[in-house]
């Protein structure tokens, strides 16, 4: 299986949405602030459900939040 990298735009989307804090996002999707920090730093890949929840919070499609690139 090829190794890929999941990147995201959560940090930018937070600022585009009224400078939403990490804690506010965490509360709205039901996880801890540390989990949001880990997602933003690409140290943790969220479950599909959490990814959809984050996208839903920002009212954007999933592919606008998360993208996947394969390392050749």
């Amino acid at each position, binding site marked *: 299986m090829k190794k890929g990298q999941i990147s995201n735009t959560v940090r930018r989307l937070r600022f585009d949405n009224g400078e939403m804090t990490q804690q506010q996002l965490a509360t709205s999707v039901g*996880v*801890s602030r540390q989990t949001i920090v*880990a997602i933003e730093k690409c140290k943790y890949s969220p479950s599909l459900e959490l990814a959809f929840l984050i996208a839903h919070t920002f009212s954007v499609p999933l592919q606008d939040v998360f993208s996947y690139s394969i390392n050749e």
Partner: protein
Amino acid sequence: MSSQEKRVAVSLISSLIVLALYIYYGAGLHASGALSGPDANYLVGKSAFIMIGIGIVVSIITHIIFTIVHTVATGEQHSNEAADERDKLIELKAMQIAFIAFSFGFMALLGVMTFGTISPYLVILLTIACLYSASILADCIKLALYRRGF
């Protein structure tokens, strides 16, 4: 430090205290020669039950002291956040590694037992100590994963 990290830190401290007490008690039993006496099975069984009780008490006391010290030192109020999916993954990963470590310890003890140079009662005591050590290892791995990111 998140509430989950605090919970793990409290668990680590209490496990270390209980393991130290257990090793001290077990070493005393072994040194006194009680493990080769007629009451060995009674003593070993009793020690396991006593340690469960002591473990619960130590855990409660450690939690109270840790909460007071942390609140005084940082001024943060204690928040009891529920575990989310990342916490559960970290827990699972740590438990997997701890289980493998315990399995190796247990197999090593069984291996030593086959030589017949060690009392079976001492093996039981060491197995319980191995269990506590695996729990400590799991807590260390959890803290490392929380710090490093996962």
